[in-house]
């Protein structure tokens, strides 16, 4: 890390004592980035942008919000009606959660498609799974805070998962609630944790970026950079590309915030929480629907009752992502050169979309005579088969296409090579 010669004497003086400018120079200017990243590599910075947006809007909301069972709903409406631009801050935060998950899910599926979890990036991937789990906990607790009907009953359903734990389940659930049902004590601790966890996420994101900068970004070809002809500096090339990406992303985000702010929400959450009246359908926020479908898909298994089995399957569906770098042991990263993997990748995407659709419907209902319960069971089976059976077998039986010699080789022959792969990918 040779310190560059800064022309500004103040910068030189500071950098001599605190090498922050050298650090920035090293991580932004000298940091080599593959020159062939496509727009799917924008979603990591978009997720970071959303994290900051959520923290900033959330801090402002916390200034006006009252975490008490009898005041929370009113205080949110006060933000909507009486706080200057309170509606804007609240809608940015509320829709921000949905958009944070949209960009994060695209970021994750990009990693799956291009094999970004493979050696030497296993820890980078696993830290990402930790971030996903933290995001899910944060989003769930945040959804409880407005204390509407869906907040209350969603919290009741989700916290009841813990009663499935044998023997100590009921005691743990009572401890989590701080009482014998979801009530004021639950709301208070959820508010406290909802304020804390984003900063934990921020810290893990820092480590995630540290792990990223050790070996640099993967790329659409999935092959390593072989020399300076394969790379460009992160700044200005990818900073300007990220700026453009953020502006386009903001168009979508603003479209919902200003013109359909309740599109992702449930009307029932504009009814104040009422422990005596259960809504006919309790559904989680859309980003949890695939997991909700997995939870409900699992029947009694041998000595494990359906509730416990469902909870294990639901958490297992994320926990198994920690083992993905070893389940998929094919040495080829990018799906561009793995025709069989590419096919199964799209089946997985389809299975996840189907799970989301099943999660939004009652399991008793049916689609053209096929019960949603069974559609959910098939999609759930595929999800686990994909990771636990198909990927390990593919590593042995798939014959990958020949890899290009270097990143700059196909980039130079973009017209001949690029046109073909763009269509398929």
């Amino acid at each position: 890390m040779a310190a560059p010669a800064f022309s500004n004497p103040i910068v030189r003086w500071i950098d001599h004592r605190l090498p922050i400018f050298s650090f920035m120079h090293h991580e932004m200017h000298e940091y080599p980035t593959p020159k062939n990243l496509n727009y799917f590599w924008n979603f990591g910075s978009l997720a970071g942008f959303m994290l900051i947006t959520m923290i900033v809007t959330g801090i402002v909301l916390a200034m006006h919000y009252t975490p008490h069972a009898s005041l929370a709903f009113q205080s949110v409406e006060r933000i909507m009606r009486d706080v200057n631009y309170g509606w804007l801050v609240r809608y940015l935060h509320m829709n921000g959660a949905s958009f944070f998950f949209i960009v994060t899910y695209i970021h994750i599926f990009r990693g799956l498609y291009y094999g970004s979890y493979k050696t030497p990036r296993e820890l980078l991937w696993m830290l990402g799974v930790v971030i996903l789990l933290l995001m899910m906990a944060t989003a769930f607790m945040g959804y409880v805070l407005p204390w509407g009907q869906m907040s209350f009953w969603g919290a009741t359903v989700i916290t009841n998962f813990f009663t499935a734990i044998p023997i100590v389940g009921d005691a743990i659930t009572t401890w989590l609630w701080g009482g014998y049902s979801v009530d004021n004590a639950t709301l208070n601790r959820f508010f406290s944790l909802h304020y804390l966890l984003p900063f934990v996420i921020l810290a893990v994101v820092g480590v995630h970026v540290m792990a990223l900068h050790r070996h640099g970004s993967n790329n659409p070809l999935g092959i390593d950079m072989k020399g300076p002809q394969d790379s460009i500096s992160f700044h200005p090339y990818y900073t300007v590309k990220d700026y453009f990406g953020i502006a386009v992303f903001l168009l979508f985000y603003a479209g919902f915030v200003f013109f359909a702010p309740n599109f992702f929400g449930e009307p029932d959450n504009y009814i104040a929480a009422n422990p005596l009246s259960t809504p006919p359908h309790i559904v989680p926020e859309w980003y949890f629907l695939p997991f909700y479908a997995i939870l409900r898909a699992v029947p009694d298994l041998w000595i494990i009752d359906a509730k416990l089995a469902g909870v294990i399957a639901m958490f297992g569906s994320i926990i198994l992502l920690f083992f993905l770098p070893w389940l998929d042991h094919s040495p080829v990263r990018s799906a561009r050169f793995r025709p069989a993997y590419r096919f199964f990748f799209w089946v997985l995407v389809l299975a996840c979309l189907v799970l989301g659709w099943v999660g939004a419907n009652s399991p008793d209902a049916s689609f053209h005579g096929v019960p949603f319960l069974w559609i959910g069971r098939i999609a759930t089976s595929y999800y686990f088969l994909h990771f636990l059976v198909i990927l390990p077998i593919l590593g042995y039986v798939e014959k990958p296409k020949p890899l290009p010699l270097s990143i700059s080789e196909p980039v130079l022959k973009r017209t001949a090579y690029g046109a073909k792969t763009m269509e398929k990918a």
Partner: protein
Amino acid sequence: MRRVLSVFAALASLAATPALAAEGGPLPEHHWSFQGLFGTFDRPAAVRGLQVYTDVCAGCHSLSLVAYRNLADLGLSEDAIKALAATATVADGPNDQGEMFDRPGRPADHFVKPFPNDQAARAANNGALPPDLSLIVKARVGGPDYLYGLMTGYEEPPADFKLFSGMNYNKVFPGHQIAMPQPLSDGAVTYADGTEATLDQMAQDVTTFLAWTSEPELEARKRMGVKVILFLLVLSGLLYAWKRKVWAEVH
């Protein structure tokens, strides 16, 4: 870019999985003045709707999130707001003798509830609790169409339908059994602006008014949204040009 867009579209359609429709009947399709990118509240309709609320609904339904002063947004004059507020009796206190006292309402007061508490409301309504109407349009699947359908959806039950005693048949209400008797019928109010008070007219007007109480920020939100989108379009174009310029030497 096209791929990015298609992923967005796929995710949007996932989220758009039909909201679990209330098990009521089909809702009437109606065009509302406040829909669309540039929609605004039809002021005369909302003011007539306020009259329907105060003359009919307010007997049972509270509107506790709305203050009288908020009516200035609908174009009511300060004097009209003061006069309307003064018709309400507000319990205030304690005074410096330590006693609670009644006083006429002021513009800063919220709409006074018809019943002091939920138990009193149930006692007066055959055990049913009339919901607060402040957020009713946002809090129902179908929004304004649902409310309009409910107001105009009272009819005789089908011959094989078992209606419980004290209940009424409504074709859009989930389960079709509603405790509220038909609230509006032709001529139920006499409009101050001379409009003929048909059932359909009153249902539209009160829906417009309650859409406003649900989303009083709607007009400011859409006005700002148009500016923000135009700004972002220009910004995206400029950033794209900048990106092209920076990357020109790489390709």
